[in-house]
């Protein structure tokens, strides 16, 4: 394949991988944004998708989910087509995509995570509510449950979105820039929740832009600049050569030194 750094490690068989992408290309606003991308997520790991602005990180995630059309490529989730595995997958979109004056309370947002289970006519029973509340509790937002969503700070909103994903009871979590525009306390809370998910054997994938925290936060790293330039364990992928290939020499020596 065209990736610069692919590592001779034992990747899971495709059927076991929580998320396997082969040859995915997608365009955004008429221009190619992701070209021929292969991704293999290893179960029970925290993975980051990292690259410069405009590298197609969010587009890759959205194309995987079918939010933007794929031109080519296959996506399997736990060895099956995505449409049959949506119940095992949870997605946390970028915060910016939402109208915050919308008439929903925090608890209503968390309850949205139970939509697949409730279906159209299912009644909301106490155990459903309890699960939504537990999810809010885990992200430290339970005491805000009765507030309208717009009355929260950015970090709190992000935690509520994470709670909605938790309430889904999924095995694979896809998060688009979960740390963008949030305060330090929220970043720490989100990270501890993600690590505990990993420790429960679930798989987490984040679109991420902060190179300085990648090594601390994640187990595996995928470097993307329209093409996948490297994929593997974070300590093996995070090399000067890979980063320069990804960022096109835009990183200074000092910046590189700060990363490791």
């Amino acid at each position, binding site marked *: 394949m065209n990736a610069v750094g692919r590592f001779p490690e034992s990747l899971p068989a495709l059927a076991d991988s929580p998320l396997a992408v082969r040859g995915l290309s997608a365009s955004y606003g008429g221009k190619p944004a992701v070209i021929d991308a292969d991704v293999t997520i290893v179960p029970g790991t925290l993975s980051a998708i990292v690259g410069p602005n405009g590298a197609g990180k969010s587009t890759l995630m*959205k194309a995987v*989910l*079918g*939010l933007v059309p794929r031109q080519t490529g296959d996506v399997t989730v736990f060895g099956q087509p995505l*449409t049959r595995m*949506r*119940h095992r*997958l*949870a*997605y946390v*979109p970028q915060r910016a*995509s*939402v*109208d*915050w004056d*919308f*008439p*929903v*309370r925090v608890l*209503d*947002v968390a309850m*949205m995570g139970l*939509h*697949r289970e*409730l279906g*159209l*006519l299912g009644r909301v029973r106490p155990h459903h509510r309890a699960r939504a509340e537990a999810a809010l509790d885990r992200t*430290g937002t339970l*005491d*805000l449950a009765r507030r*309208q969503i*717009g*009355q929260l*700070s*950015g*970090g*709190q*909103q992000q935690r509520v979105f994470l709670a*909605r994903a938790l309430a*889904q009871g999924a095995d694979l979590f*896809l998060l688009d820039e979960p740390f963008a*525009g*949030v*305060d*330090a*306390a929220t970043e720490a809370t989100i990270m501890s929740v993600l690590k505990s998910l990993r420790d429960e054997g679930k798989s987490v994938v984040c679109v991420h832009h902060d190179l300085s925290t990648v090594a601390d936060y994640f187990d595996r790293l995928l470097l993307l600049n329209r093409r996948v330039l490297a994929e593997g364990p974070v300590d093996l992928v995070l090399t000067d050569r890979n980063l320069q290939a990804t960022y096109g020499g835009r990183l200074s020596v000092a910046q590189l030194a700060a990363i490791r």
Partner: protein
Amino acid sequence: MSAFLDALLLRTGYNAALVSVGAMLLGLAAGAAGTFMVLRKRALVADAMAHATLPGVALAFLAMVGLGGEGRALWGLMVGAAGTALLGLLAVDRLTARTRLPEDAAIGAVLSVTFGAGVVLLTVIQTMSAGQQAGLEGFLLGSTAGMLRADALTIAAGGLVAGAVIWVLRRPMTIVAFDEGFATATGIDVVRVDRIGMILVLFVTVAGLRIVGIVLVVALLIIPAVAARFWTDRTSVMFWVAALIGGLSGWLGTALSAAAPGLPAGPLVVLVAATIFALSLFLAPRRGVVARAVAARSSSGRLDPSEAARWIALRHMEPTSPLIDEDDGRTPLSALLPPDRLAALDRGPV
């Protein structure tokens, strides 16, 4: 006044009572369908659809006359109306999706052109049936005069069906309107939900033509939903409140019209809704203008330095927080944030 009371209590005869009940059910459905439409920020698409019904009504009339009928059967006119309204909706969607025109321009273009075509057809009908009143003018502003029992039942049934479908789909509709990306990711077919939502709006529009009229039926969809937003922060409640306001407007409006037969029903229904909207805008708790003014007054005056410092800390630590828009120099952050967040702000950046 007593005539109005009689009409309110459905004592003006079986037919008039039926019309009131029909208008009430129609208003219920309109409030609920309008809630989805307003939350989806497509409020005025319905106006294009409403105006696009006119050529359909005229064509259906011509077709029924051509087939030897009288041309005034409401169901037939409604089928014609629904046909061209659907074409109007498709035209708005196509123009928006396939060309560079923004949605408001597409709405304006479709609305005026289809209405123009309808007026041309109306003049054809006028000259054709010289002398014989076609009675289609009633569709412009709505009227309850001379409505048949079958007409009222048709409208009531339409309102009931639309209301039931919305009740079934309220959850996916809420999720789609709030967060499209999440909706798709959990497997909701956004395009299909949108399509069903707009079909319901079309359904209500067509059912409402006879009573409220082409020019004003969009108001029965928009105003109850907009008014309902003032009373609640929850979509599930908003659907009900909007339905209630819509039903009340339909009932009171047609009762007024029954008490004063010279007045067209549509404007009366709309003005009842508009009155409820104005009351909501000013008097609703929390979101109403008065409540907000009182809240602002009770926290008027300059902030003490420690509260001001919290705002500064917030701006540093969460520069993108939507709360920053709330900083009016008077509201203390302690009124907006829970204690743990305040403590974090007081500690300052980590």
